[in-house]
C-alpha cells in the first residue's frame, strides 16, 4: 500500500515539477519539488526507498532530455542513497535538522549539476550560485517545510521510531 502510494506520489511530483513549478516561480527561481520528495522518502523510509525512488524520479526527469540523459538519474540516486543512510543516524524529532540537511543537499546538488554541465566561466559559476542557487535553497526550503507537514499527515506515510 505504502509503496503504491509513493510511486503515485513520485509521478505526481514529477508532473508538478513540469507544470506547476514554473507557475509558482519567484524572480525566476523554481522550487525543486522532485528533490523535496526524494528527500522526504529517503529520510522517512530509508535507503532502499531512497535508492529506487531517487533512480526512477531521475529517470522520469531525464527521459525527455536526450542531451543529458542519465545525469539526474545518477544524482538523485546518490542523494537517495546518502539521505537514506542518514535516516539511521538522525531521529526526526527535530524538523530543523531535517531542513538544514535538505538545504545542504540542495546546495550540493546545484553545485555538482553545474560542475557536470560546465559551460560557464568561474565568475558566472559563482554568480549562478549567488543569484540562483542560494535563493532556490531558501525558496525550496520554505516549500519543503509546507510539503513535509502535509505529507506527514497522510497516515500511510507516517513512520514510527
Amino acid at each position, binding site marked *: 500500500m505504502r509503496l503504491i502510494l509513493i510511486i503515485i506520489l513520485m509521478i505526481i511530483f514529477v508532473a508538478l515539477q513540469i507544470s506547476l513549478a514554473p507557475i509558482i516561480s519567484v524572480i525566476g527561481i523554481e522550487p525543486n519539488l522532485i528533490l523535496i520528495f526524494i528527500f522526504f522518502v529517503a529520510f522517512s523510509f530509508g535507503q532502499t526507498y531512497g535508492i529506487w525512488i531517487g533512480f526512477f524520479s531521475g529517470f522520469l526527469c531525464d527521459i525527455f532530455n536526450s542531451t543529458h540523459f*542519465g545525469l539526474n*538519474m545518477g544524482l538523485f540516486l546518490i542523494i537517495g542513497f546518502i539521505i537514506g543512510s542518514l535516516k539511521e543516524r538522525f531521529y526526526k524529532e527535530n524538523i530543523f535538522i531535517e531542513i538544514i540537511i535538505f538545504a545542504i543537499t540542495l546546495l550540493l546538488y546545484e553545485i555538482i549539476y553545474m560542475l557536470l554541465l560546465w559551460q560557464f566561466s568561474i565568475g558566472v559559476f559563482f554568480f549562478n550560485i549567488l543569484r540562483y542557487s542560494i535563493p532556490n535553497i531558501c525558496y525550496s526550503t520554505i516549500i519543503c517545510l509546507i510539503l513535509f507537514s502535509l505529507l506527514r499527515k497522510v497516515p500511510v506515510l507516517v513512520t514510527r521510531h
Partner: protein
Amino acid sequence: MVKKQRIINMSSLNFWGFILLLLLSIFSYSAKENLKLGIVKNISAAMLFPLEKTINFTVNTFSLHKKNSELRKEIALISLEIQRCENIKRENKILRELYGFKPMMDFNLIPCEIIGKNPGLYNKSLIIDGGFEDNIDKNMAVISADGLVGKIIETTQKSSEVLTLYNINSFVSAIDLRSRVPGIIKWKRERFLIFDDVPLHSDIKVGDTLLTSGMGGVFPKGIFIGKVIKVQESPKEIVMRITIQPFFDFNLLEEVFVITEGTNTSLISLSKTDTVRVSMINLDMFKKIKETQNFYISFSENKKPKINLLKNINH
C-alpha cells in the same frame, strides 16, 4: 540524537544495488546518443502528460475569463493585420520578381501535439507526437502560433524531442526587426532569454522585436522570437546585456508546428510535367535559353509562364 552507525554498510544489498544503478546511470549518460528509448519515452509521456494537462488546465481555469476577452481583442487585431500583410506579401512578391531575387519560401507546417515536457533546470525540452514517419527530421525548426519554440534534436518513428529556447545548449542567430542589429539568443537559466554578442551602443530599444536571421541554416529567416524588455549597458563590458521575453509560453504550450522544407509556388524547376508549359513560350526565347541552365521560370498572377534569364549570360 545521533546513533553511532556507519553511514555506508558495504556488505548490504542496498549498497550493491546502489552501485549497480549508479553504473547504469553512468553508462546511460555516456551512451546517451546511441540509446533507443522510443517506446519508454512514449510510455512515460502517456503516464505524465495527462497529469500535466490536468494541472495546467486547473491553473489556467482561474484566469480563463480574462484571457478569453484578451484573445478576442487580439483575434480582431490579427485579422486586420493578416489582410494588410496579404497585400504587402503580394507587392513584395512582384517586386522581388522584378528585381530578379529568388522568391521567398512558403513554409510547410506539420502540426504536432506535445506529449511530454522535460522539467530540467538547465534544459527544458519537449516531446511531440510526430516522428520520422511524418517526415520530421533532426534540425527542423519548431514554432508555435506565437513564435519560435526551438528545433528537433532527436526523432523516433512516432515522436521527436524538441530543444527549446530555454536550454543552455540552444543558440539562435537573430536580428532586430527595426534596426537590423544581429546577435545570438541564449538562455542562462533565467526567467527570460538574453540577446548576446551585441556590441555596446548598438541601436536596441525596449519593445523591439527580434526575428531569426536565417544564419546557420537551421532556422528559416524571419520567424518571430521575442520582444526586448530590458537593455543594460555597462562601460566595464564590451557587449550589451539585453533581456528578451519570448513570444511563446513554455508552460502553456500544447501544440507546435514543425517547419519542413519550404515550398515555392512561383519558382518552378524544369521537370517532365512542366514541359508543356515551357513549350508555350515563344520559339526564339526557347532557342536562346536552350544553351544554358542559368535561367528560371516563374508564373505571373494570371498563370502565364515567364522565363527569367540571369544577367551574366552573354548571348
